[in-house]
């Protein structure tokens, strides 16, 4: 299959320069792909889809009573990130996560940043994800954000911007690992001559991070992964990570709190649990502390956590920094806590609770992307240029009714990557979600999840909205021969 008719259409393309020449780091990959016949590539594509189905790498579609499982569409052509570019991203992410963690710890303790007037108090205390129950808590070593999945996008200017921080229970890392496995099995030739940094060490790093939080570091800690169960859309990932780390996958009903400690029900009686990697939202964690109607959680868990008898990752309450209004202040946080400018900039953001911003937003709805401050997964969102007049009017009313709940950003011309469409290549918009672990130190898995808006022209990459994914390659520095390909 040839790229000769491929057209970047004026967008920033991850593989091609404006003049249509391959970018230096993508040249070899493009040659390999071009050397294959159309039939070959399409056969690989089908083989990959069959493999994903057989491996059961599927997600459940909410609201579908038949329990339909779908594979997350996977495109064979990887997205490549040059070594220098990655260094920049990695530095920026470490800086950002460190500052966010300082912010959360500050908010639940002295609130210096509010007292010093860097961020208005009312913005923070009115955030739907702020948890007053977490005030004064001291998670082990002061770490609140153990696993972060920051969303980055690349604009028409070729710069990376941070779109969202996703501090609560970010998902998708299993696709990073499985996409690589599938590509290696189906299309090994594509790796030839390139030295792609491996991603397979993520589960070990995650386990290390979790073990580092154990309340009693002298003994070998018992780590478990808490899932809402098989009907959760990310269940595959929960079981996959538990399996890869060799820890137990538990549901709320498997756990019980007694005498201040957390136990799991086993065939031989109750066994103590030290660290819980919870993939359940704060609200459902403990019916005694949060939502009383939650059947997924464990009664008494928060009290055990408060007394330091069990560690939770991520720490409850850390979602306060996920609020999209608070997001707008992250560059200020970085200056405040780190004394540096942000390495990775934010997308310019209008805050609708500010009168000037709101007036501007209401006048320019048709050009902007409007987001609810506390939603994720592509829900509660208006993409102005792709919306009807009626949809814009509806959002205008919502904004006027609850200005605190909305922010707006310019519609970004997200970068594109060649993607197989029928029998040829077309550019599709992508984002990038790297995963950051914060244990004894901060680690970023090389690459991350590249999500693709599979629909022509679409800017929405979420899997719930028809998005797919690609393998993401970070190339190594230095001579390739010395690098060991995984």
């Amino acid at each position, binding site marked *: 299959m040839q790229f000769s008719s491929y057209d970047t259409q004026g967008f920033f393309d991850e593989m091609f320069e404006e003049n249509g020449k391959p970018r230096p780091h993508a040249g070899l990959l493009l040659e390999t792909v071009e050397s294959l016949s159309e039939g070959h590539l399409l056969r690989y594509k089908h083989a990959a889809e069959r493999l994903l189905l057989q491996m059961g790498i599927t997600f459940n579609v909410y609201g579908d009573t038949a329990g339909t499982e779908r594979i997350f569409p996977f495109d064979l052509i990887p997205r490549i990130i040059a070594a220098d570019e990655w260094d920049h991203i990695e530095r920026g992410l470490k800086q950002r996560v460190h500052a966010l963690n300082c912010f959360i710890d500050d908010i639940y303790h002295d609130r210096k940043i509010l007292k010093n007037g860097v961020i208005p108090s009312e913005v923070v205390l009115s955030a739907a994800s702020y948890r007053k129950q977490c005030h004064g808590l001291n998670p082990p070593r002061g770490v609140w954000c153990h696993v972060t999945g920051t969303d980055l996008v690349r604009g028409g200017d070729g710069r990376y911007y941070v779109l969202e921080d996703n501090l609560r229970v970010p998902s998708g890392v299993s696709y990073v690992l499985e996409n690589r496995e599938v590509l290696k099995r189906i299309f090994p030739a594509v790796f030839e001559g390139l030295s792609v940094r491996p991603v397979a060490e993520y589960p070990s790093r995650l386990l290390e991070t979790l073990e580092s939080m154990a309340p009693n570091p002298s003994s070998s800690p018992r780590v478990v992964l808490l899932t809402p169960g098989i009907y959760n859309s990310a269940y595959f990932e929960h079981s996959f990570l538990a399996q890869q780390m060799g820890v137990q996958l538990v549901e709320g009903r*498997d756990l019980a709190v007694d005498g201040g400690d957390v136990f799991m029900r086993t*065939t031989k009686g109750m066994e103590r649990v030290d660290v819980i990697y919870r993939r359940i939202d704060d609200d459902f964690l403990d019916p005694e502390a949060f939502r009383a109607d939650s059947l997924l959680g464990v009664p008494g868990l928060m009290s055990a956590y408060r007394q330091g008898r069990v560690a939770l990752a991520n720490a409850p309450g850390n979602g306060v920094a996920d609020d999209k209004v608070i997001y707008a202040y992250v560059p200020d946080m970085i200056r405040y806590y780190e004394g540096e400018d942000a390495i990775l900039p934010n997308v310019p953001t209008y805050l609708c609770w500010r009168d000037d911003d709101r007036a501007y937003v209401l006048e320019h709805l048709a050009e902007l992307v409007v987001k609810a401050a506390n939603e994720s997964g592509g829900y509660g969102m208006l993409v102005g240029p792709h919306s009807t007049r009626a949809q814009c009017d509806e959002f205008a009313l919502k904004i006027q009714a609850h200005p605190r709940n909305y922010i707006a950003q310019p519609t970004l011309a997200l970068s594109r990557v060649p993607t197989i469409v029928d029998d040829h290549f077309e550019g599709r918009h992508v984002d990038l979600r790297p995963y950051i672990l914060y244990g004894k130190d901060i680690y970023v898995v090389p690459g991350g999840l590249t999500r693709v808006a599979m629909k022509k022209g679409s800017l929405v990459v979420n899997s719930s909205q028809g998005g797919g994914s690609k393998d993401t390659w970070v190339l190594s520095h230095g001579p390739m021969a010395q690098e060991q390909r995984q």
Partner: protein
Amino acid sequence: MNTGYRTRPLLSRVAEAVYWMGRYMERAENVARFIDVNQNLMLDLPRGFGEQWQPIVDTTGDRAAFLERYGEATLANVVEFLGFDVRNPNSIYSCVTAARESARSVRETISSEMWEQINSLYLLIATQSRKPLSEGLPQFCRDVRMACHLFQGIQHSTMSHNEAWHFIRLGTSLERADKTTRILDVKYFILLPSVSDVGTPYDDIQWGAVLKSVSGFEMYRKCFGRISPDRVVEFLLLDGEFPRAVRYCIGLADNSLHAITGTRLGAFSCPTEQRLGLLRSELDYAQVEPILQAGLHEFFDGLQARMNTIDECVRGDFFAQKVAFQVGTSGQSG
């Protein structure tokens, strides 16, 4: 610092899920066997003998549900009911779906290869259930059976033979023992057209079919040569080496149970062990003649009831962990 090997505790929920995964996979395999052998048998019977599909439904114990929804026991009706009916919890489709649901909930406990094999079988059946099944039936039954055998092999060679594995084997063995008694029961009392047929070539064919339905035809021949009803019963009930014989299955179940509890063989520490051990020794020292004289059907009824009780004991002893704490600070003892 943890220096040594640590036994990984098994969640009660996980133990229950893998036990049922084993049972459902075994059930799916047996239903496929019933259909396949019966179709084969029908082809050997003379014209006018009548289609004998009702006994197969009776084997699974779902006679009432079948009569209510389908009425006549034709090939098409029975294959639909036993193969693909989602409302029949014992259809191949329902069993494999249930096994897959269980496997999915314990994917981190079983090996990836086991999961993929169950998933492949599910995809095979889900595809097949949307296609008309006429000439493809024997092949389909064989595919299901082979997929189940492959699952047994994968399970044996890719998963540590740990506590969870023994729960799978416990479920599989109990299910297999139950199905073998049912198939014998049906043959002895329903398939048999009349006393005058006993000892005729048709009777030979039918007993041959029973043996084939549990893959026991060749192994039986090696033991006893000529086919005789008493010897077939003896072989399928009391043989200590044939893997689908009831006694063999009960022995296997008992071994796994003791591997789970750590109690030595021949002793017991919980109701499950007591009842299973008792059944095992009875079968170990039983002879076929007194059983036949007392009535085989009654014997099977008793056996099935005892196996049901054992199943209930397994639930009580291992799956239903109440909040009674056995460790920790509560001071209660288990």
